[in-house]
């Protein structure tokens, strides 16, 4: 990010504009999910995770701890990996949301998905969508990651089966693979 400094003194201290209050009931929300513009009706207290799974039937994003301590709900917002269980959907208005369902294109798996299969990078598979989204985010900034880069990128995604060594291999291999 460019070093654009905070400019507190220029923040206007008076304003005649009225601020729109939404909720507490359902409110219309415009999101871009996997490249498609969608509109949902959700109350402000609804998390992005529940919105994806329930309002949009995108159940590839998993709900496990629902408190930001497991990483299974990892999705990308504006290209960066975040926990959708700790994100209110209403804060994502106008942002680009990407989930595991958006990775495969024209019947072809995404290179990271392919790499997970080739490296046998899962057992039960429940953490897998989150692991994959974290690595997808990593590869956009670091196209040829080291083992350590991958390890750090998935440090926020627990795998209770203990598939970590193969997850790390999959991440490194995906970096070598051409899209």
């Amino acid at each position, binding site marked *: *990010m*460019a*070093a*654009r*400094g*905070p*400019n*507190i003194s*220029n*923040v*206007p*201290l*008076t*304003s005649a*504009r009225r*601020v*729109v*209050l*939404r*909720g*507490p*009931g359902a*409110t219309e929300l415009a999101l871009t999910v996997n490249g498609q513009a969608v509109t949902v009706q959700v*109350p*402000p*207290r609804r*998390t992005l995770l529940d919105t994806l799974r329930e309002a949009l039937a995108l159940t590839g994003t998993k709900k496990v701890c*629902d*408190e*930001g*301590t497991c*990483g299974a709900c*990892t999705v990308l917002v504006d290209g*960066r*990996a*975040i*926990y959708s269980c*700790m*994100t*209110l959907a*209403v*804060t994502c*208005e106008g942002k680009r949301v990407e989930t595991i369902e958006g990775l495969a294109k024209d019947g072809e798996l995404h290179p990271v998905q392919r790499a997970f299969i080739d490296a046998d990078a899962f057992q039960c598979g429940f953490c897998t969508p989150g692991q994959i989204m*974290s690595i997808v*985010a990593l590869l956009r900034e670091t196209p040829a990651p080291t083992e350590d880069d991958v390890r*750090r*990128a998935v*440090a*926020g995604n627990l795998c209770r089966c203990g598939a970590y060594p193969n997850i790390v291999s999959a991440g490194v291999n995906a970096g070598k693979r051409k899209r």
Partner: protein
Amino acid sequence: MNAFSYARPRTLADALRLLRNGAAALAGGTDLVGLMKDGLTRPTTLVDLTGIDGLRGWSHPKGRGIRIGALTPLVELETDQSLAKTMPILREALRDAATVQLRTMGTVGGNLLQRNRCWYFRDEGTPCWLKGGTRCFAVDGENRYHAIIGAQECVMVSPSDLVPALIAYDAEIALTSSRGQRSMKLIDLFVAPRGRERREHSLRPGELITEVRVPEAALARRGTYVKAMDRKAWSFALVSIAAAAKIERGVARDVRLVMGGIAPVPWRVIAAEKGLEGSPLDEAACADAADRMLTGATPLRDNGYKVTLARELVRRALRSLVA
């Protein structure tokens, strides 16, 4: 989570007006959303601050110190190449803070104001003293992660990794409310809950942190952040320390030692720092500093290990400044 109304104002003035009327401020949400899910706070209105221009990003006007906007995501401080040269301790402290997802979501201001992690506090059904109850359940309960020093009625510990690093560089914060602006030393933001003050921060109702400032003079210090965790990643500090000093001709000047995870506030002992003025930071000096940092420590049933750990981290951090 309770139902609430939501607003995303574009100006600070609009945000402050809503806050004055009792709304809660939302930035990254990594702490607030959890507190709301657990029923520990039930705001009727949330003010999303992320739409406000001008509170995000950092700058370093030549010779005038570093200014960091309160809404800057932690990940930006962690990954910025030029900041890594000017103030490397920030990257060091943030690299092992939470996870990349949480550092992407979380902001500087939110990190400073995060609530403590005591499991009795975090459990909605436990009426602990800090939440208005009559007693602290940790003091004679499960207290492996709790305070060994500086605690009164509540034995929670200061959880932030960023805070000790910033305090070791004499950081100040700018605050704004609809009643005006003020600034204070960052360390003065933190209060040990006691008596009638059942709170962790001295932020006033309706007030926002807008900026963190690090004075230019402090940037001449060499600094390090050392954190001990239960596991290698994604843990709060058992004990942590930020150490900083100007090293001139092999001796230390302007030493700062700030510890996390051992007290309800970022733990600083002026006598320990003064005792190291002009010191070569040899083993004897480090041991003496550790003694002073931990004078009066009274560990609880399960956390005596923190005293040993804290001593070792003081030593390691100081030794690395002259390594």
